Protein backbone atom coordinates (compact mmCIF):
# COMPACT_ATOMS: atom_id res chain seq x y z
CA UNK A 1 0.00 0.00 0.00
CA UNK A 2 1.14 3.53 -0.72
CA UNK A 3 1.06 5.94 2.18
CA UNK A 4 3.05 8.76 0.63
CA UNK A 5 -0.05 10.41 -0.80
CA UNK A 6 0.51 13.69 1.06
CA UNK A 7 4.03 14.51 -0.11
CA UNK A 8 4.26 12.08 -3.03
CA UNK A 9 5.94 14.54 -5.38
CA UNK A 10 8.56 15.77 -2.91
CA UNK A 11 11.17 13.44 -4.44
CA UNK A 12 10.80 14.18 -8.17
CA UNK A 13 13.26 16.36 -10.03
CA UNK A 14 12.63 19.92 -11.26
CA UNK A 15 14.30 23.35 -11.08
CA UNK A 16 12.23 24.08 -7.96
CA UNK A 17 13.10 20.78 -6.29
CA UNK A 18 16.80 21.43 -6.78
CA UNK A 19 16.76 24.63 -4.68
CA UNK A 20 18.15 24.36 -1.12
CA UNK A 21 15.50 23.51 1.47
CA UNK A 22 16.37 26.51 3.64
CA UNK A 23 15.63 28.92 0.77
CA UNK A 24 12.33 27.23 -0.04
CA UNK A 25 11.24 27.25 3.61
CA UNK A 26 12.18 30.93 4.02
CA UNK A 27 10.39 31.80 0.78
CA UNK A 28 7.22 30.00 1.90
CA UNK A 29 7.31 31.79 5.25
CA UNK A 30 7.69 35.19 3.55
CA UNK A 31 4.81 34.44 1.14
CA UNK A 32 2.52 33.48 4.04
CA UNK A 33 3.55 36.54 6.05
CA UNK A 34 2.82 38.87 3.11
CA UNK A 35 -0.55 37.22 2.58
CA UNK A 36 -1.70 36.95 6.18
CA UNK A 37 -0.37 39.91 8.14
CA UNK A 38 -1.82 43.04 6.37
CA UNK A 39 -5.40 43.51 7.67
CA UNK A 40 -6.81 45.16 4.53
CA UNK A 41 -4.29 44.38 1.80
CA UNK A 42 -4.76 45.94 -1.65
CA UNK A 43 -5.84 43.44 -4.28
CA UNK A 44 -2.54 43.56 -6.18
CA UNK A 45 -0.71 41.87 -3.29
CA UNK A 46 -2.99 38.84 -3.56
CA UNK A 47 -2.71 38.87 -7.35
CA UNK A 48 1.08 39.10 -7.17
CA UNK A 49 1.40 36.23 -4.67
CA UNK A 50 -1.03 34.10 -6.70
CA UNK A 51 0.86 34.71 -9.95
CA UNK A 52 4.20 33.87 -8.32
CA UNK A 53 2.82 30.65 -6.81
CA UNK A 54 1.24 29.58 -10.13
CA UNK A 55 4.55 30.12 -11.93
CA UNK A 56 6.34 27.99 -9.32
CA UNK A 57 3.73 25.22 -9.55
CA UNK A 58 4.22 25.14 -13.32
CA UNK A 59 8.00 25.01 -12.89
CA UNK A 60 7.84 22.29 -10.23
CA UNK A 61 6.20 19.72 -12.58
CA UNK A 62 3.70 18.65 -9.93
CA UNK A 63 0.56 17.36 -11.75
CA UNK A 64 -2.15 20.03 -11.65
CA UNK A 65 -4.86 17.48 -10.91
CA UNK A 66 -3.02 16.25 -7.81
CA UNK A 67 -2.61 19.82 -6.64
CA UNK A 68 -6.30 20.60 -7.13
CA UNK A 69 -7.33 17.43 -5.28
CA UNK A 70 -5.18 18.35 -2.29
CA UNK A 71 -6.61 21.87 -2.33
CA UNK A 72 -10.22 20.70 -2.58
CA UNK A 73 -9.66 18.37 0.37
CA UNK A 74 -9.12 21.31 2.74
CA UNK A 75 -11.27 24.01 1.15
CA UNK A 76 -14.50 22.81 2.88
CA UNK A 77 -12.90 23.39 6.33
CA UNK A 78 -11.88 26.91 5.36
CA UNK A 79 -15.30 27.72 3.92
CA UNK A 80 -17.11 26.45 7.04
CA UNK A 81 -15.14 28.59 9.48
CA UNK A 82 -15.16 31.57 7.12
CA UNK A 83 -18.94 31.25 6.75
CA UNK A 84 -19.25 32.10 10.47
CA UNK A 85 -17.79 35.51 9.63
CA UNK A 86 -20.86 36.23 7.48
CA UNK A 87 -23.01 36.62 10.59
CA UNK A 88 -21.75 40.08 11.48
CA UNK A 89 -21.78 43.60 10.05
CA UNK A 90 -19.61 43.88 6.94
CA UNK A 91 -19.46 40.11 6.80
CA UNK A 92 -19.18 39.44 3.08
CA UNK A 93 -15.96 41.36 2.29
CA UNK A 94 -14.43 39.82 5.42
CA UNK A 95 -15.52 36.36 4.24
CA UNK A 96 -13.88 36.90 0.84
CA UNK A 97 -10.63 38.17 2.37
CA UNK A 98 -10.47 35.17 4.73
CA UNK A 99 -11.05 32.66 1.94
CA UNK A 100 -8.44 34.25 -0.36
CA UNK A 101 -5.86 34.59 2.45
CA UNK A 102 -6.14 31.03 3.68
CA UNK A 103 -6.32 29.52 0.19
CA UNK A 104 -3.10 31.28 -0.82
CA UNK A 105 -1.38 30.10 2.39
CA UNK A 106 -2.65 26.58 1.75
CA UNK A 107 -1.23 26.59 -1.80
CA UNK A 108 2.11 27.79 -0.43
CA UNK A 109 2.32 24.95 2.10
CA UNK A 110 1.24 22.26 -0.41
CA UNK A 111 3.89 23.56 -2.80
CA UNK A 112 6.57 23.51 -0.06
CA UNK A 113 5.71 20.00 1.18
CA UNK A 114 5.68 18.62 -2.36
CA UNK A 115 8.97 20.18 -3.45
CA UNK A 116 10.99 19.53 -0.27
CA UNK A 117 11.50 16.13 1.39
CA UNK A 118 10.53 16.19 5.07
CA UNK A 119 14.00 15.22 6.31
CA UNK A 120 15.47 18.29 4.59
CA UNK A 121 12.93 20.50 6.36
CA UNK A 122 14.03 18.86 9.62
CA UNK A 123 17.64 19.72 8.82
CA UNK A 124 16.57 23.36 8.43
CA UNK A 125 14.84 23.21 11.83
CA UNK A 126 18.02 21.84 13.39
CA UNK A 127 20.04 24.62 11.81
CA UNK A 128 17.78 27.32 13.30
CA UNK A 129 18.42 25.75 16.76
CA UNK A 130 15.13 24.03 17.42
CA UNK A 131 15.96 21.71 20.39
CA UNK A 132 17.52 18.53 19.02
CA UNK A 133 15.33 16.24 21.15
CA UNK A 134 12.34 17.75 19.43
CA UNK A 135 13.78 17.29 15.94
CA UNK A 136 14.72 13.67 16.76
CA UNK A 137 11.12 13.03 17.82
CA UNK A 138 9.84 14.48 14.56
CA UNK A 139 12.27 12.41 12.50
CA UNK A 140 11.27 9.21 14.31
CA UNK A 141 7.62 10.08 13.88
CA UNK A 142 7.95 10.61 10.14
CA UNK A 143 9.91 7.37 9.78
CA UNK A 144 7.33 5.25 11.60
CA UNK A 145 4.02 6.78 10.46
CA UNK A 146 4.18 4.56 7.39
CA UNK A 147 5.18 1.45 9.34
CA UNK A 148 2.33 1.91 11.81
CA UNK A 149 -0.17 2.71 9.05
CA UNK A 150 0.78 -0.61 7.44
CA UNK A 151 0.42 -2.36 10.77
CA UNK A 152 -3.08 -0.91 11.21
CA UNK A 153 -4.00 -2.09 7.73
CA UNK A 154 -2.78 -5.61 8.55
CA UNK A 155 -4.77 -5.76 11.78
CA UNK A 156 -7.90 -4.60 9.95
CA UNK A 157 -7.46 -7.13 7.18
CA UNK A 158 -6.84 -9.94 9.64
CA UNK A 159 -10.02 -9.11 11.49
CA UNK A 160 -12.10 -8.71 8.34
CA UNK A 161 -10.94 -12.02 6.93
CA UNK A 162 -12.13 -13.79 10.06
CA UNK A 163 -15.54 -12.22 10.62
CA UNK A 164 -18.67 -12.19 8.52
CA UNK A 165 -21.26 -9.47 8.11
CA UNK A 166 -21.24 -5.83 9.05
CA UNK A 167 -22.39 -5.23 12.59
CA UNK A 168 -22.68 -1.47 13.00
CA UNK A 169 -22.72 -1.47 16.78
CA UNK A 170 -19.47 -3.41 16.94
CA UNK A 171 -17.51 -1.06 14.69
CA UNK A 172 -16.49 1.40 17.40
CA UNK A 173 -15.38 -1.34 19.79
CA UNK A 174 -13.46 -3.05 16.99
CA UNK A 175 -11.74 0.16 15.87
CA UNK A 176 -10.89 1.09 19.47
CA UNK A 177 -9.25 -2.28 20.02
CA UNK A 178 -7.14 -1.67 16.93
CA UNK A 179 -6.08 1.72 18.31
CA UNK A 180 -5.28 0.16 21.70
CA UNK A 181 -3.26 -2.64 20.12
CA UNK A 182 -1.48 -0.11 17.94
CA UNK A 183 -0.42 1.83 21.04
CA UNK A 184 0.98 -1.28 22.72
CA UNK A 185 2.83 -2.34 19.58
CA UNK A 186 4.27 1.19 19.22
CA UNK A 187 5.64 1.15 22.77
CA UNK A 188 7.16 -2.31 22.23
CA UNK A 189 8.71 -1.14 18.98
CA UNK A 190 10.06 1.95 20.77
CA UNK A 191 11.91 -0.33 23.20
CA UNK A 192 13.52 -2.23 20.32
CA UNK A 193 14.42 1.03 18.55
CA UNK A 194 15.99 2.38 21.73
CA UNK A 195 18.08 -0.76 22.07
CA UNK A 196 19.16 -0.50 18.43
CA UNK A 197 19.98 3.21 18.79
CA UNK A 198 21.98 2.62 21.97
CA UNK A 199 23.88 -0.20 20.29
CA UNK A 200 24.96 2.31 17.64
CA UNK A 201 26.20 4.81 20.19
CA UNK A 202 23.19 7.16 20.50
CA UNK A 203 22.57 8.77 23.85
Amino acid sequence: MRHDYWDRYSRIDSPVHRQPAAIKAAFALVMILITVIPPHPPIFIFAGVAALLLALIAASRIPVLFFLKRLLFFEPFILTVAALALFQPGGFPKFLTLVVKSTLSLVTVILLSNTTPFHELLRVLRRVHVPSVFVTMMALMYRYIFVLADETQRMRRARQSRTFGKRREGTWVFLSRIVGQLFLRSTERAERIYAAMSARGWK
Partner: protein
Amino acid sequence: MHIPDGFLDPKTLVAASALSVAGLGRALWVLRTRMSSRKVPLMGLAAAFLFVAQMINFPVVGGTSGHLLGAVLVSVLLGPSEAILVMSVVLIAQAFLFADGGVLALGANVFNMGIAAVLGGYFFYRLVAAVVRTEYGKLVGAAFGAWASTVLASICCTGELAWSGTVAWSVGFPAMTGIHMLIGIGEALITALVLTAVYRARPSLMSAKDGGTAEPSAKPFAGLLIYGGLITLGLVLFVLPFASKWPDGLEKIAAVVGFDAKAVSPPFVSSPLADYRVPGVGSLSAATALAGIIGAVLVFTVSFILARALHRKSSEDGAGRRRRPGSRI
Protein backbone atom coordinates in the same frame (compact mmCIF):
# COMPACT_ATOMS: atom_id res chain seq x y z
CA MET B 1 -10.51 22.58 14.97
CA HIS B 2 -7.22 23.18 13.14
CA ILE B 3 -7.17 26.95 12.49
CA PRO B 4 -5.90 27.70 8.95
CA ASP B 5 -3.62 30.64 8.15
CA GLY B 6 -5.36 33.96 7.55
CA PHE B 7 -7.93 33.65 10.33
CA LEU B 8 -5.91 35.18 13.16
CA ASP B 9 -4.47 38.69 13.43
CA PRO B 10 -0.85 39.44 14.45
CA LYS B 11 -1.50 40.16 18.16
CA THR B 12 -3.34 36.86 18.63
CA LEU B 13 -0.65 34.97 16.70
CA VAL B 14 2.10 36.45 18.86
CA ALA B 15 0.27 35.90 22.17
CA ALA B 16 -0.67 32.29 21.36
CA SER B 17 2.82 31.49 20.06
CA ALA B 18 4.43 32.91 23.22
CA LEU B 19 2.19 30.75 25.43
CA SER B 20 2.90 27.67 23.30
CA VAL B 21 6.65 28.20 23.34
CA ALA B 22 6.55 28.60 27.14
CA GLY B 23 4.54 25.38 27.54
CA LEU B 24 6.76 23.45 25.14
CA GLY B 25 9.88 24.80 26.84
CA ARG B 26 8.68 23.56 30.21
CA ALA B 27 7.76 20.12 28.77
CA LEU B 28 11.16 19.81 27.06
CA TRP B 29 12.93 20.83 30.25
CA VAL B 30 11.06 18.14 32.18
CA LEU B 31 12.04 15.60 29.53
CA ARG B 32 15.71 16.61 29.58
CA THR B 33 16.25 16.86 33.32
CA ARG B 34 13.95 14.26 34.83
CA MET B 35 13.67 11.45 32.34
CA SER B 36 15.98 8.90 30.77
CA SER B 37 16.88 9.15 27.09
CA ARG B 38 14.81 5.98 26.68
CA LYS B 39 11.82 8.32 26.50
CA VAL B 40 12.86 10.01 23.25
CA PRO B 41 12.20 7.05 20.91
CA LEU B 42 9.09 6.21 22.93
CA MET B 43 7.67 9.67 22.30
CA GLY B 44 8.62 9.66 18.64
CA LEU B 45 6.72 6.40 18.26
CA ALA B 46 3.83 7.71 20.37
CA ALA B 47 3.59 10.68 17.97
CA ALA B 48 3.55 8.32 14.97
CA PHE B 49 0.89 6.27 16.78
CA LEU B 50 -1.27 9.32 17.39
CA PHE B 51 -0.83 10.50 13.80
CA VAL B 52 -2.08 7.14 12.51
CA ALA B 53 -4.80 6.86 15.18
CA GLN B 54 -6.19 10.27 14.15
CA MET B 55 -6.56 8.98 10.59
CA ILE B 56 -8.86 6.11 11.64
CA ASN B 57 -12.43 7.20 10.97
CA PHE B 58 -15.18 6.23 13.39
CA PRO B 59 -18.53 6.12 11.56
CA VAL B 60 -21.27 8.39 12.90
CA VAL B 61 -24.85 8.53 11.54
CA GLY B 62 -25.53 9.35 7.92
CA GLY B 63 -22.16 8.75 6.28
CA THR B 64 -20.33 11.26 8.46
CA SER B 65 -17.41 10.16 10.58
CA GLY B 66 -15.27 11.50 13.38
CA HIS B 67 -11.80 10.80 14.61
CA LEU B 68 -9.83 10.83 17.82
CA LEU B 69 -8.06 13.95 19.07
CA GLY B 70 -6.15 11.92 21.64
CA ALA B 71 -4.96 14.64 24.05
CA VAL B 72 -6.32 12.88 27.13
CA LEU B 73 -5.60 9.37 25.84
CA VAL B 74 -1.88 10.15 25.47
CA SER B 75 -1.66 12.10 28.73
CA VAL B 76 -3.28 9.23 30.65
CA LEU B 77 -0.99 6.64 29.05
CA LEU B 78 2.28 8.64 29.06
CA GLY B 79 1.88 11.66 31.38
CA PRO B 80 1.00 15.35 30.78
CA SER B 81 4.42 16.78 29.80
CA GLU B 82 4.97 13.90 27.39
CA ALA B 83 1.50 14.44 25.92
CA ILE B 84 2.23 18.14 25.29
CA LEU B 85 5.33 17.19 23.27
CA VAL B 86 3.58 14.37 21.40
CA MET B 87 0.57 16.50 20.49
CA SER B 88 2.80 19.40 19.37
CA VAL B 89 4.97 17.20 17.17
CA VAL B 90 1.84 15.76 15.55
CA LEU B 91 0.38 19.24 14.99
CA ILE B 92 3.62 20.55 13.46
CA ALA B 93 3.85 17.57 11.12
CA GLN B 94 0.20 18.01 10.13
CA ALA B 95 0.81 21.67 9.32
CA PHE B 96 3.83 20.98 7.11
CA LEU B 97 2.97 17.58 5.66
CA PHE B 98 -0.81 17.67 5.37
CA ALA B 99 -1.26 21.45 5.20
CA ASP B 100 -3.81 20.78 7.96
CA GLY B 101 -3.81 23.91 10.10
CA GLY B 102 -1.78 26.99 9.22
CA VAL B 103 1.97 27.50 9.64
CA LEU B 104 1.66 30.87 11.35
CA ALA B 105 -1.43 29.65 13.21
CA LEU B 106 0.65 26.77 14.60
CA GLY B 107 1.17 28.61 17.88
CA ALA B 108 -2.57 28.90 18.39
CA ASN B 109 -3.24 25.30 17.35
CA VAL B 110 -0.51 24.00 19.65
CA PHE B 111 -1.95 26.04 22.52
CA ASN B 112 -5.55 24.87 21.93
CA MET B 113 -5.02 21.19 21.21
CA GLY B 114 -1.54 20.55 22.56
CA ILE B 115 -1.53 22.50 25.80
CA ALA B 116 -5.04 23.57 26.85
CA ALA B 117 -6.64 20.26 25.80
CA VAL B 118 -3.90 18.13 27.38
CA LEU B 119 -3.61 20.01 30.67
CA GLY B 120 -7.33 20.76 31.04
CA GLY B 121 -8.32 17.20 30.22
CA TYR B 122 -5.58 15.72 32.42
CA PHE B 123 -6.62 17.95 35.32
CA PHE B 124 -10.20 16.66 35.17
CA TYR B 125 -8.92 13.09 34.75
CA ARG B 126 -6.84 13.30 37.94
CA LEU B 127 -9.62 15.13 39.79
CA VAL B 128 -12.25 12.51 38.96
CA ALA B 129 -9.84 9.62 39.52
CA ALA B 130 -9.04 11.06 42.95
CA VAL B 131 -12.73 11.35 43.87
CA VAL B 132 -13.96 8.08 42.33
CA ARG B 133 -11.47 5.82 44.04
CA THR B 134 -12.59 2.59 42.45
CA GLU B 135 -10.77 0.48 39.90
CA TYR B 136 -12.74 2.01 37.06
CA GLY B 137 -12.29 5.58 38.38
CA LYS B 138 -9.54 6.06 35.78
CA LEU B 139 -11.97 5.25 32.98
CA VAL B 140 -14.60 7.65 34.36
CA GLY B 141 -11.98 10.38 34.66
CA ALA B 142 -10.50 9.75 31.23
CA ALA B 143 -13.91 9.81 29.54
CA PHE B 144 -14.95 13.01 31.31
CA GLY B 145 -11.51 14.56 30.78
CA ALA B 146 -11.67 13.74 27.06
CA TRP B 147 -15.00 15.54 26.76
CA ALA B 148 -13.75 18.52 28.74
CA SER B 149 -10.54 18.70 26.67
CA THR B 150 -12.48 18.91 23.41
CA VAL B 151 -14.81 21.60 24.75
CA LEU B 152 -11.95 23.58 26.30
CA ALA B 153 -9.93 23.52 23.06
CA SER B 154 -12.95 24.75 21.10
CA ILE B 155 -13.56 27.56 23.62
CA CYS B 156 -9.93 28.73 23.27
CA CYS B 157 -10.26 28.48 19.48
CA THR B 158 -13.43 30.61 19.53
CA GLY B 159 -11.77 33.15 21.81
CA GLU B 160 -8.79 33.49 19.48
CA LEU B 161 -11.04 33.94 16.44
CA ALA B 162 -13.10 36.54 18.31
CA TRP B 163 -10.04 38.42 19.57
CA SER B 164 -8.78 38.59 15.98
CA GLY B 165 -12.13 40.09 14.94
CA THR B 166 -12.69 37.22 12.50
CA VAL B 167 -15.76 35.56 13.96
CA ALA B 168 -17.84 37.40 16.55
CA TRP B 169 -17.98 35.63 19.93
CA SER B 170 -21.78 35.75 19.98
CA VAL B 171 -21.82 33.73 16.72
CA GLY B 172 -18.72 31.59 17.19
CA PHE B 173 -19.34 30.46 20.75
CA PRO B 174 -22.72 28.78 20.17
CA ALA B 175 -21.63 27.39 16.79
CA MET B 176 -18.14 26.10 17.62
CA THR B 177 -18.57 25.13 21.26
CA GLY B 178 -22.06 23.79 20.70
CA ILE B 179 -20.80 21.41 18.02
CA HIS B 180 -17.77 20.40 20.07
CA MET B 181 -19.93 19.52 23.05
CA LEU B 182 -21.37 16.83 20.77
CA ILE B 183 -18.02 15.88 19.20
CA GLY B 184 -16.62 15.59 22.72
CA ILE B 185 -19.05 12.75 23.46
CA GLY B 186 -17.44 10.77 20.64
CA GLU B 187 -13.98 11.64 21.97
CA ALA B 188 -15.00 10.47 25.46
CA LEU B 189 -16.38 7.21 24.10
CA ILE B 190 -13.32 6.44 21.95
CA THR B 191 -10.92 7.33 24.78
CA ALA B 192 -12.73 5.04 27.22
CA LEU B 193 -12.93 2.19 24.68
CA VAL B 194 -9.25 2.45 23.71
CA LEU B 195 -8.14 2.60 27.36
CA THR B 196 -10.27 -0.47 28.10
CA ALA B 197 -8.55 -2.28 25.23
CA VAL B 198 -5.10 -1.26 26.49
CA TYR B 199 -5.82 -2.20 30.13
CA ARG B 200 -7.31 -5.51 29.05
CA ALA B 201 -4.15 -6.45 27.19
CA ARG B 202 -1.85 -5.05 29.94
CA PRO B 203 -3.71 -5.17 33.26
CA SER B 204 -0.56 -3.93 35.02
CA LEU B 205 -1.03 -0.48 33.42
CA MET B 206 -4.41 -0.09 35.13
CA SER B 207 -3.05 -0.47 38.64
CA ALA B 208 0.07 1.62 37.96
CA LYS B 209 -0.20 5.07 39.46
CA ASP B 210 0.35 7.17 36.36
CA GLY B 211 -0.38 4.92 33.43
CA GLY B 212 2.75 2.90 34.12
CA THR B 213 5.23 4.60 31.81
CA ALA B 214 5.23 8.05 33.42
CA GLU B 215 7.96 8.69 35.93
CA PRO B 216 7.08 10.41 39.20
CA SER B 217 7.88 14.08 39.05
CA ALA B 218 10.16 15.40 41.77
CA LYS B 219 8.39 18.74 42.19
CA PRO B 220 4.75 18.34 41.21
CA PHE B 221 3.96 21.73 42.68
CA ALA B 222 6.28 23.65 40.33
CA GLY B 223 4.72 21.91 37.34
CA LEU B 224 1.23 22.71 38.56
CA LEU B 225 2.21 26.34 39.05
CA ILE B 226 3.77 26.80 35.61
CA TYR B 227 1.20 24.83 33.61
CA GLY B 228 -1.71 26.23 35.62
CA GLY B 229 -0.36 29.75 35.07
CA LEU B 230 -0.11 29.21 31.31
CA ILE B 231 -3.68 27.96 31.03
CA THR B 232 -5.00 30.78 33.20
CA LEU B 233 -3.10 33.36 31.14
CA GLY B 234 -4.52 31.86 27.93
CA LEU B 235 -8.07 31.95 29.26
CA VAL B 236 -7.65 35.51 30.56
CA LEU B 237 -6.37 36.65 27.15
CA PHE B 238 -8.63 34.74 24.78
CA VAL B 239 -11.83 34.01 26.67
CA LEU B 240 -12.41 36.32 29.63
CA PRO B 241 -13.07 39.55 27.64
CA PHE B 242 -15.95 37.81 25.89
CA ALA B 243 -17.15 35.59 28.69
CA SER B 244 -17.82 38.63 30.85
CA LYS B 245 -20.62 39.52 28.45
CA TRP B 246 -22.55 36.38 29.31
CA PRO B 247 -24.88 38.00 31.87
CA ASP B 248 -26.54 39.87 28.97
CA GLY B 249 -29.09 37.09 28.82
CA LEU B 250 -29.79 37.44 32.52
CA GLU B 251 -30.12 41.21 32.20
CA LYS B 252 -32.69 40.67 29.50
CA ILE B 253 -34.69 38.35 31.68
CA ALA B 254 -34.44 40.87 34.50
CA ALA B 255 -35.74 43.57 32.17
CA VAL B 256 -38.63 41.41 31.01
CA VAL B 257 -39.60 40.33 34.53
CA GLY B 258 -39.47 43.97 35.67
CA PHE B 259 -36.49 43.57 37.95
CA ASP B 260 -35.02 46.86 36.73
CA ALA B 261 -38.23 48.87 37.20
CA LYS B 262 -36.14 51.59 38.81
CA ALA B 263 -34.10 52.04 35.65
CA VAL B 264 -34.07 55.54 34.23
CA SER B 265 -35.98 54.68 31.08
CA PRO B 266 -38.97 52.36 31.43
CA PRO B 267 -38.71 49.09 29.46
CA PHE B 268 -41.70 49.84 27.20
CA VAL B 269 -40.07 52.99 25.86
CA SER B 270 -36.64 51.66 24.95
CA SER B 271 -36.54 48.04 23.88
CA PRO B 272 -34.48 45.79 26.17
CA LEU B 273 -32.87 44.46 23.01
CA ALA B 274 -31.66 47.88 21.92
CA ASP B 275 -28.03 47.32 22.75
CA TYR B 276 -27.77 44.07 20.82
CA ARG B 277 -26.52 44.34 17.29
CA VAL B 278 -28.22 41.11 16.33
CA PRO B 279 -31.30 40.51 18.47
CA GLY B 280 -31.30 37.27 20.42
CA VAL B 281 -27.72 36.31 19.62
CA GLY B 282 -26.42 37.47 22.99
CA SER B 283 -28.79 35.18 24.80
CA LEU B 284 -27.66 32.36 22.51
CA SER B 285 -24.22 32.60 24.12
CA ALA B 286 -25.75 32.43 27.58
CA ALA B 287 -27.83 29.44 26.48
CA THR B 288 -24.69 27.71 25.20
CA ALA B 289 -22.89 28.33 28.47
CA LEU B 290 -25.87 26.95 30.38
CA ALA B 291 -26.04 23.95 28.05
CA GLY B 292 -22.34 23.43 28.72
CA ILE B 293 -22.90 23.21 32.46
CA ILE B 294 -25.84 20.85 32.07
CA GLY B 295 -23.85 18.89 29.48
CA ALA B 296 -20.91 18.51 31.86
CA VAL B 297 -23.12 16.99 34.55
CA LEU B 298 -24.77 14.72 31.99
CA VAL B 299 -21.49 13.60 30.44
CA PHE B 300 -20.06 12.86 33.87
CA THR B 301 -23.03 10.66 34.72
CA VAL B 302 -22.82 8.87 31.39
CA SER B 303 -19.03 8.39 31.75
CA PHE B 304 -19.65 6.82 35.13
CA ILE B 305 -22.19 4.34 33.76
CA LEU B 306 -20.06 3.65 30.69
CA ALA B 307 -16.90 3.01 32.70
CA ARG B 308 -18.74 0.67 35.01
CA ALA B 309 -20.20 -1.26 32.07
CA LEU B 310 -16.86 -1.43 30.22
CA HIS B 311 -15.03 -2.50 33.36
CA ARG B 312 -17.51 -5.28 34.09
CA LYS B 313 -17.63 -6.37 30.45
CA SER B 314 -13.86 -6.51 30.12
CA SER B 315 -13.48 -8.68 33.22
CA GLU B 316 -16.19 -11.03 31.88
CA ASP B 317 -14.56 -11.08 28.46
CA GLY B 318 -11.23 -11.81 30.04
CA ALA B 319 -12.71 -14.86 31.77
CA GLY B 320 -14.29 -15.99 28.51
CA ARG B 321 -11.09 -15.60 26.57
CA ARG B 322 -9.14 -17.95 28.76
CA ARG B 323 -11.52 -20.67 27.71
CA ARG B 324 -11.42 -19.86 23.99
CA PRO B 325 -8.04 -18.42 23.08
CA GLY B 326 -8.90 -18.59 19.37
CA SER B 327 -11.40 -15.73 19.66
CA ARG B 328 -8.70 -13.17 20.16
CA ILE B 329 -8.40 -10.47 17.51
